[in-house]
């Protein structure tokens, strides 16, 4: 087997976002073949020679794109279910959240990982190996005030990762969730740009700062590298201590 043949193939969804972008660069730097996918393919074209437009909420699109990826790269070793949204600023408390907005958050954050994983499982099962990394949130462990849809979706994402871990672990496929705290990304910038909100968030974090996308890419790269090969069903918290008190 040549060294080239052993390069892991990693698919990252939502690659144009903060964590997605940092992860793609990091995984490429570690010698992996990375497929960058995003709704907006133009924004990921420069990230990797392998890039695809992908709407994770559309079953037909997911199936078609994953088949194309498998055809082009031969296999997928790791799927990073990273695409996620917080919902509009209307998506607040349960009583105030518009129904369509709740559905949209769940469609991207929960149904998306389900569809993407489902499309790649047959090839991973045939290979007898594979790894699913789902980006959840500490909101999957503790509730974010006034963010009902997001909190609910991330709790579901953690348990989706665990469900995969127990059902497919015996087939050589591992699954873990990563639970970032507040990360400075385009998705969260509107909050962090308000000095009072930023100060409030920072006061909650024992380490005294919000995370940078690279902090999360570190964890994704560690899992993808296979250097944490006994982790299965874990919810790995990367939050500067936010949820520890």
């Amino acid at each position: 087997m040549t060294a080239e043949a052993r390069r892991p193939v990693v698919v990252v969804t939502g690659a144009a976002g903060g964590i997605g972008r940092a992860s793609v660069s990091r995984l490429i730097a570690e010698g992996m073949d990375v497929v960058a996918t995003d709704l907006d393919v133009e924004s990921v074209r420069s990230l990797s020679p392998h890039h695809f437009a992908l709407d994770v909420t559309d079953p037909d699109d997911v199936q078609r794109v994953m088949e194309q990826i498998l055809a082009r790269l031969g296999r997928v070793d790791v799927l990073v279910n990273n695409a996620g949204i917080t919902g509009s600023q209307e998506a607040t408390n349960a009583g105030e959240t518009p129904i369509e907005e709740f559905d949209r958050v769940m469609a991207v954050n929960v149904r998306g990982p389900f569809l993407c994983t489902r499309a790649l499982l047959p090839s991973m099962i045939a290979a007898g190996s594979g790894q699913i990394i789902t980006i959840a949130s500490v909101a999957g462990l503790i509730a974010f005030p006034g963010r009902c849809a997001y909190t609910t979706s991330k709790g579901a994402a953690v348990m989706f990762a665990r469900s995969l871990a127990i059902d497919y672990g015996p087939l050589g496929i591992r699954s873990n969730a990563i639970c970032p705290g507040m990360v400075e990304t385009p998705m969260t910038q509107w909050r962090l740009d308000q000095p009072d909100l930023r100060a409030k968030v920072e006061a909650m974090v024992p380490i005294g700062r919000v995370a940078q996308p690279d902090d999360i890419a570190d964890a994704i790269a560690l899992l993808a590298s296979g250097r944490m090969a006994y982790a299965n069903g874990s919810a790995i918290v990367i939050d500067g201590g936010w949820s520890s008190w």
Partner: protein
Amino acid sequence: MPGRLEGKVAVITGAGSGIGRASAELFAREGAAVAVLDVNGDAAAEVSEGISAAGHRAMALSTDVTDDAQVRAAVAAVIANFGDIAVLYNNAGIGSSGAVDVAEEDDWDRCFDINVKGTYLCSRAVVPSMLQAGRGSIINQASVAALVGIPNFAAYCAAKGAVASLTRSMSVDLAPRGIRANAIAPGTVYTPLMEPMLTARGGGDLQKGLAMTIAKYPIGRLGDVTDIAGAALYLASDEAAFVTGSVLTIDGGMTSI
């Protein structure tokens, strides 16, 4: 209407004040014969007399839960007086302040002796009686400190974490023999035990410390002893017949944010 603990014998440690006292009074009203144990024998006697005066059954025992001989003697006295024990509420506990680098070794040991070893000694002494009866419910007092870090409370967090783990261990080992074991994880409850901690948190000002603490509670208040006694009653009763190994959080939402 029969009480929810009719015909049961309940032992409650640290029952001379606070949550233990409220639980003793509630358990007695629900039909249990209650053994009120406390290291402060006068406090235990006062609680026991109050329960008796209200027409319910109680006895007081001056017991240091860290002393195995005292624990065994107390358990033997309860069985002689009331019969086999159905419920043990390991409520006796103390706080211990200080971050890990300033916590005193003596305080650390004392915190573990009372909160952890006391729970172990009392459970060990009561289990044979529960086995004799073929059933039993052990309730251990953990804390939200078993789940999250409380600032400047290193020994207490560690000890309560140990109580939660001991509870799970007990539930696994004793469930096949008919004994359930669960823990309660209260948030901050306003009891005399908490006042030094609240005062310290407020920089010497109790009211300020109280306000700072309440800010962590979505429900907008600290717990009351009756909030916890109600949870203990549930775990003690047959309504919780399928509940074992649980750590029941009663914290006004404190650990949910």
